């Protein structure tokens, strides 16, 4: 195997490692302190309300983070004049374009499949017990789908820019 191929694959592993590692840090540095700060002295009396507020904030943060990723990604494509080439999977932009389509699918899955059902599961909007149970299955599959898609998405995002030896 060419060393350039190993180098390209190392970049994919590198970014995935960063996601796991820094994701852990961010969960502790950003998520935990911000949510715990909402707890009042007599937390037990108002636990349901606190849990709901913390849950809404947590889901809001990751939902809107997806839009930050989408906007910054589209900006980088536009800056390089690659939007149409990537979206139409044209020539050398095809690998990156596949990553873009995977990313767009993940954003759509999050906002249009997971979120409408998650609202019911978490009790943000009223729903019957049966409906909430049905929605848990949808949110599970939707979430798992995005986890699966994230791995090839990271591959094509990184390889599209740095993995020419592979293609």
């Amino acid at each position, binding site marked *: 195997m060419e060393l350039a191929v190993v180098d390209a694959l190392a970049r994919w592993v590198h970014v995935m490692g960063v996601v796991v590692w820094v994701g852990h840090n961010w969960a502790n540095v950003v998520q935990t302190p911000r949510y715990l700060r909402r707890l009042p002295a007599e937390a037990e009396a108002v636990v349901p309300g606190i849990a709901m507020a913390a849950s809404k904030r947590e889901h809001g943060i990751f939902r809107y983070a997806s839009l930050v990723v989408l906007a910054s990604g589209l900006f980088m494509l536009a800056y390089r004049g690659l939007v149409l080439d990537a979206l139409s999977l044209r*020539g050398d932009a095809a*690998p990156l374009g*596949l990553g873009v389509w995977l990313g767009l699918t993940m954003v759509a899955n999050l906002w249009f499949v997971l979120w409408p059902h998650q609202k019911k599961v978490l009790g943000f909007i009223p729903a019957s017990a049966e409906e909430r149970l049905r929605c848990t299955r949808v949110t599970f599959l939707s979430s798992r789908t995005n986890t699966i898609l994230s791995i090839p998405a990271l591959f094509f995002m990184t390889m599209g820019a740095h993995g020419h030896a592979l293609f």
Partner: protein
Amino acid sequence: MQLRLPHDSLRGTLCAAAVLTLILFALARVLVASGL
């Protein structure tokens, strides 16, 4: 007894991701080679 769904495992997730990555990788190589 714990209900364990077919896809409810890290191994299943990683296998699905690996298969999808390989299929799309082959597609990407074809697209780049064709130069369309």
